[in-house]
């Protein structure tokens, strides 16, 4: 009986192993393909902003600091805000470049966009969902069949020279928070605005502020206002008349995790042990 088992068990094992051998190429090639697709897309348009962790101080006051180039550039297309009146059908800013960094405590996000003129009313904003409930990308507009959550808006205006930390749950509900956690600094040169927003990754007001856990994805959206005045002295873009983006993703990268290597090492050890036992059994069976 044992003799027979000694034959059958390894037969099945070797058969399965042959199939695995043949297939080992398959998952590998599938992975390569998806990585290539992602790369092709990122040259056209990004789906997420990834903030690497940096050692040393974040360039909170310096949109031109060299360390920004260590963050991957994300690029998002912008549309005029058409969802809700008062809408506009054409906006100045058509593309937004975004980079982000964090140091484990604070996060810094750099927005960069082309604007032909520097105006006191030029403004930019970043929007996040707050809590677990989904919020509509247009200011957290109420939804008919889904209970939505609020949005957290970080707003910067050139003439104010600072950021406002705000909440909204639909157009017309914008409210400045009593506790201001966001800082912002803008710099204009050669027809390009660069604006840095900074905030602690987490705050004590989880019901109003978005909380950024390292390694996790949160939803992010952007808005830009061209504060140029037209011939009649009216602002070209103001309030709901602005360039907006859809929801995309933001992630503060987690510190490097080496546990995958340990698991792999463990698996290699187990496989070696399996082979050792198998061959020993085979040899025993042969001599018996």
């Amino acid at each position, binding site marked *: 009986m044992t003799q027979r088992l000694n034959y059958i068990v390894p*037969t099945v094992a070797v058969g399965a192993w042959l*199939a695995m051998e043949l297939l080992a190429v398959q*998952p590998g090639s599938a992975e390569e393909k998806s990585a290539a697709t992602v790369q092709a897309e990122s040259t056209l348009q990004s789906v997420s902003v990834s903030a690497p962790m940096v050692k040393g101080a974040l360039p909170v006051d310096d949109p031109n600091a060299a360390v920004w180039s260590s963050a991957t550039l994300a690029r998002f297309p912008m549309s005029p805000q058409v969802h*809700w*009146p008062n809408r506009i059908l054409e906006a100045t800013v058509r593309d937004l470049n975004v980079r982000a960094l964090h140091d484990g405590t604070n996060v810094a996000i750099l927005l960069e966009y082309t604007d032909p003129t520097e105006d006191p009313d030029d403004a930019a904003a970043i929007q996040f969902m707050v809590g677990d409930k*989904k919020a509509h990308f247009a200011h957290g507009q109420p939804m*008919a069949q889904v209970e939505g959550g609020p949005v957290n808006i970080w707003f910067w205006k050139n003439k104010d020279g600072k950021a406002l930390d705000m909440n909204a749950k639909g157009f017309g509900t914008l409210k400045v928070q009593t506790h201001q956690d966001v800082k912002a600094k803008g710099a204009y040169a050669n027809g390009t605005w660069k604006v840095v927003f900074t905030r602690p990754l987490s705050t004590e007001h989880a019901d109003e502020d978005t909380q950024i856990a390292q390694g996790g994805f949160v939803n992010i959206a952007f808005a830009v206002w061209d504060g140029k005045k037209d011939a009649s002295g009216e602002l070209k873009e103001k309030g709901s008349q602005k360039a907006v983006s*859809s929801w995309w993703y933001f992630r503060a990268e987690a510190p490097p995790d080496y546990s995958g290597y340990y698991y792999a090492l463990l698996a290699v050890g187990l496989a070696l042990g399996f082979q050792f036992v198998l061959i020993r059994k085979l040899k025993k069976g042969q001599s018996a």
Partner: protein
Amino acid sequence: MGGSLLKPVILIGIVYAILKFVVPNIPGSAPLPASLIFLYLMLTTSGIVIFATLSGESKDAFWNPIQRFMTGENIGGLQVLRYGVLLLFPLMVGWQTYSSTATSDAPPSENRTIHPAPPGEYTGLSNPVPKTPDTIQQGKGFYAAFCSPCHGGNFDGKGPAARGFNPPPANFSDPTTIAMLQESYLFWRIKKGGVGLPIEGMPWKSAMPRWEVELPDEWIWKIIMGEYDGAHQAPRTWE
């Protein structure tokens, strides 16, 4: 190694080639996912094993070469190959383990239903506006004013304001959009907009305005007629 082991290996190779290269080229077929091919190959392998172990002789014929390969002495080049296999197998196991535990850089995948079911009160409504060249023309005028900035003057979803929106505005000339839907469905979508979608439609991502706050119903029905006519599509009917 004997011919009895060569045959199963060739068989597995043929099955793999058929699944990978022949099946996707059969009209109406599609490339098989890797997990399905793996499952089929496992089934083939179990079949081979069952077949080979049916009788004592066939079992020995199948098994002896393997045993000789794994434990035999003085088998020349095969011995080198054996150590290669014994080295490669643990490495492959390790690599598979690493790639399955490595954290993904990809954001969460999204599975959005493009045409979710409408609420009951919007099913089976018929267009109350008589379909005349005049009303269609009016509808096209309203479309040009309110819809074309995103959905495009050519009804192709490529209006000047469309670029930033994800999901992109619907392309009405695509036969998988309004041609698949009834007029009452379009009435619901235009009236309630993106925020009126059920949860599987991910309403929080849609830029479609809630036109009921700005346009009378009659205009919406005319827009629907203008849309079908302009996109050279006909509404779906149940006849």
